[in-house]
């Protein structure tokens, strides 16, 4: 559960971890039944309506103004979004 919290970037309190663990156990035991019918011969459907090759012509369109882009920024500096120190590395 802690590991999932790290992956999902949610700081979970001990109480939350405990509560969620119990609830997820119950939910997972209910939903795990999908594997009963999901046999190897069944193809997976990721889109309800099968389409392909949906493209956009390479023609420039509207962009946000800097004011619009920064409109909701919790913190900004020098027309850029400001965040506190980053620990991790680029991927």
């Amino acid at each position: 559960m802690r590991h999932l919290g790290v992956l999902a970037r949610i700081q979970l309190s001990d109480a939350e971890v405990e509560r969620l663990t119990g609830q997820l156990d119950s939910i997972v035991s209910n939903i795990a039944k999908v594997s009963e019918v999901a046999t190897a011969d069944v193809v997976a459907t990721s889109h309800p309506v099968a389409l392909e090759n949906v493209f956009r012509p390479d023609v420039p369109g509207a962009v946000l103004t800097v004011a619009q882009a920064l409109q909701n920024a919790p913190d900004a500096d020098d027309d850029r979004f400001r965040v506190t120190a980053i620990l991790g590395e680029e991927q």
Partner: protein
Amino acid sequence: MAKDALMDFDEALELFEPVLGFEVHVELNTETKMFSAAPNPAHESNHDAAPNTLVAPVDMGLPGALPVVNAQAVRSSISLGLALGCSIAPSSRFARKNYFYPDLGKNYQISQYDEPIAFEGQVEVELEDGTLVQIPIERAHMEEDAGKLTHVGGATGRIQGAEYSLVDYNRAGVPLVEIVTKPIFGAEGRAPELAAAYVRAIRDIVIALGISEARMERGNLRCDANVSLRPRGQEKLGTRTETKNVNSMRSVQRAVRYEIQRQAAILAAGGSITQETRHWHEDTGTTSPGRPKSDADDYRYFPEPDLLPVAPSGALVEELRAALPEQPVARRRRLKGEWGFTDLEFQDVANGGLVDVVEATIAAGAAPAAARKWWTGEITRIANLQELEASDLVSPEAVAQLQALVDAGTLTDKLARQVLEGMIADEGTPQEIVDARGLAVVSDDGALIAAIDEALAAQPDVLEKIRDGKVQAAGAVIGAVMKAMKGQADAARVRELVLERAAQ
């Protein structure tokens, strides 16, 4: 930072076999981004955009925004896949690579995972001595670039020690093709050289295709170099490191060499290699550890539900295949023969990135040797001084016109160099500059003879010496005449005339 122990390179090669692998990211130069209609900063017209001015809602992950695939980016990717000798997947799809990072507007990167658009190819790479090596390609897939972080408050602009960071999303969503090689065996002591040659080969291919600006210093082309060593005679591959974002061919070469020496020292001392990313430091010529591989690297890939499969028709693939330019290595081989250059002469041209301009100059009428001399000589010298690309200074056509004036005897080499300066300063065509600056060679023998007679009269002793057969004494008279003519005379013709007059 503790200094790494390094083993002598040759010694390392005796004990270990280096195995290489590369991931090269190519920024496509489409007009717009991969998934939005925002102008693409990797297109030549948008290089200097101010922060956050090339941003559409989807590029910064605004609530409700959706991606739509750029048709041209798909075409460019297919062309690149074909040029890499890959098969094009009849159906490929996008996936989400989930991880949190402030430069990633949505906190997932739209990439391709289990179904890349191109797979299984090979690239012919030419080493400096002309040796050809085949590099096996695993896949080439489409994805989007991330935004740009600026780290503030640290000593060196690095992430470590920075107080805060600023994010610009202009680059977020720039179309990328990531080219992944299979493990490359057998490079041995030429591994560093091969690394640089491979990156050069990719650069040449994308330039020939016209699908990327391919400027490494701008990040249009970025190489992650994987290096592992295995003891001689061992089957199993060693643990590899991935040196990220090496941004010049020289650096790729140095980084690979460094990793071989560093890993060899560790292994020889009984240590083991940590699987990690590493950073290349241009200033010190070293790598330093980055992120170790961990279970936090769970990217939770799944098919991107906002996008549909890309299923290029056979007709489209064949159309793009038919439009492929000649492979750069093959083209170079052909041109070298046609131009009659030596290996060294041709490498000069190729390594300077001047094949295209030399070819165009020859096409405009210049002799191959002359075209080569202009571009690798004077033009490159001035470009280096001005920190510009030689090809940005003058056009091949103008260089051919300049050479034509030399061939016609209108200009000496020295005068021609002055005209070139005028051309670079945008003073007009070579002929216009000759006229405006009055630089043409004085070809009127009458004027030359008058000047010669005057000089001979002024130096009777010289005349005597010439008449006595000491021909080399003519130099003093020639010098005086050239000075009188302000250099605009053909020295050889002057010499002829001096000897002629002295004999009379």
